[in-house]
C-alpha cells in the first residue's frame, strides 16, 4: 500500500509521546487546531519519511509541486525516477507535461 501525502498538510494517526517528539525533532510541525502536520525543516527529510512510513505502515510518497504550472503531481509519472536521489520527497520540480510542452515553457520564460 502507498500513502500519498501533501507536504502542506497531512494527517497521521495518534502516536505515543516519544514518537511525536521524534517527528517534531525531525522537522514536522503540528497544527493543533486543525490536527494536521506540515513539514517545517527538510534537513532530515529521509529519516522523517521513514518514520512517517513506519507509523502508517505503508510506503510514503509526497506530492511534488511544479515550478511552472503550480500543479501537484507524483514522481511515478517521471521518467527520471530511478536516477533521482530525492524521489518521492516533497521538493519542487517540473511536471512531465510542462517539461515537454514548448508553449508552456515560453509562457514561463516571459515571466522573467
Amino acid at each position: 500500500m502507498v500513502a500519498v501525502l501533501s507536504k502542506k498538510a497531512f494527517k497521521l494517526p495518534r502516536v505515543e509521546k516519544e514518537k511525536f517528539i521524534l517527528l517534531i525533532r525531525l522537522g514536522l510541525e503540528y497544527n493543533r487546531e486543525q490536527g494536521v502536520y506540515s513539514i517545517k525543516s527538510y534537513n532530515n527529510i529521509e529519516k522523517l519519511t521513514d518514520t512517517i512510513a513506519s507509523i502508517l505502515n505503508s510506503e510514503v510518497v509526497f506530492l511534488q509541486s511544479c515550478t511552472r504550472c503550480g500543479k501537484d503531481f507524483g514522481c511515478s509519472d517521471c521518467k527520471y525516477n530511478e536516477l533521482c536521489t530525492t524521489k518521492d520527497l516533497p521538493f519542487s520540480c517540473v511536471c512531465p507535461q510542462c517539461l515537454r510542452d514548448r508553449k508552456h515553457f515560453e509562457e514561463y520564460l516571459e515571466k522573467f
Partner: protein
Amino acid sequence: MPNDLLWVEKYRPKKIEDIIGNEEAKATFIEWLKSKRRSKKAVLLYGPPGVGKTALVNAAAKEFGFIIIEMNASDARSEKAINEIAKPATSYVALDSFSAVTKGNLLFLDEVDGIAGNEDRGGVGAIIKIIEESRVPIIMAANDPDIDKLRPLKKVCLLIRFQQIRIPLIIALLQKICLLENVKADFEALEHIAQNSRGDARSAINDLQSLSEENHVLTLQDTMTLSFRNKDISLDETLRGFFSAKSVGEASSLLSRSNVDYDEFIMSVSDNLPKRYSDPNELAAAYDLVSQADVFRRRIGTEHWFLLKYFFNALSKAAAVAPESYKPFEFISPPIRIITLFWTKGKRTMLNGICGKIGAQCHVSHETAKHDFVPFIKNILQNQKSSPLASWLKLTPEEVDFLIKMNKY
C-alpha cells in the same frame, strides 16, 4: 555581454528566483536573512557542489542590500587571518548601514569544510568566537558538514540542507539557456546532459557550452562523448535503494554506482535485515547470502577487485530474497558495531591505561595484563577496595572504581 564569457558566469543567477531547485532551503534562508531578531547569528548552507549555495548568498545579498565580505578556500583561514579580516567586518556597524540603500555587512565564509591543515590552524575556533560576538549576519557554505572539525560549528549555526537539483529542473535551465543562446538542441540531448550532471547545474551548463557553442546545434549523438560523472551516494541513500530494490540487477547497479565503504555497508545490511524480513526463512536465506558476500569481501582484500562482481551479486541477492514483501522501515545507521565502539571508547581507553600500568609494574604486555591479570586484580579490589595492590600498581581512585564496577573486560 562579451561572447567569450563562460556560460556559467553569464547565466549566474542574479535574482533569488533565478536559482533553480531547493525552494524550501531558499525560503528558510531568506526568512532567516530578513529576520530582525535571528535566533541563530550564523547559518550553514550545506549540500553537494553546483546546487546554488554560493549563488543564493550573492543573489540574496544583492537583493536585500548587504555588502558581502567573503573569505573562500583560496584565502588562508587561520585564526590570525580570520581575526584580521572577519572580526572588524562583524564587530562594527558600518555607517552606510543607516542608509536606505544598504543594510551593512554580511560575512560569507565559503567552503568552510576546507578549513584544514597547518595553514588554517585555529580557524574554526576563531569563527565560533566571531559568531558569538558578531553584530552582522554570518553565512557559511560547505559540501560536507559531517567532518569532525565542523561539529562545534554546527552547534551554533542554523543548518540548511541543499539537495541535488532534480533532472527536470536542470533540463528546464538548459532549455532556457539554449533559447537565449540560439542553440537548437534536441530534447534527448539536453536530457542526456542533465542525467550525466547528477544534479550539478554548473557542470551541466559547462557541458552544454562545450558541446554546442561552435555549431549552435546539439544532437543526442554530440552528447555521447560525455563521460559519466560518478557522484557519491551516501550510506543512507544506498541502504534505502538497496532494500527497496525490486530485482537483483537493480540492487547490484546501485551498489556499483555508490562509493560507500563496503565493510561498513555490509555491517549496516546485517543490522537492518531483521527489520526488512519478518519471515524467519527469508531472513535466514538473506543472512546466508550476506555471509557469502562477506567471504568475497575478505578475498577481495585490497588487491583482488575482479571479485567485486561476486560480492555485489551475493549482496544484491540478499536484498531481493522477497521483493514483494518490502515495507518501508526506519534504518539502523551507522552500523551498531561502530556505534558501540564509539560509546565504549571512554571505557576502552580507561582499561588500556590500567593495562599499561599493570604491564609496566609486572613486566607483561597489554594483552597479557588484560586477560591474565585484570580478572584477578578486579576480584581482589572487589573484596578490599583499599588493597595495597592498588597503590603498588599506581591506580587512581577512578581506575579502582572502574575495575570494581566493570562487567566485561
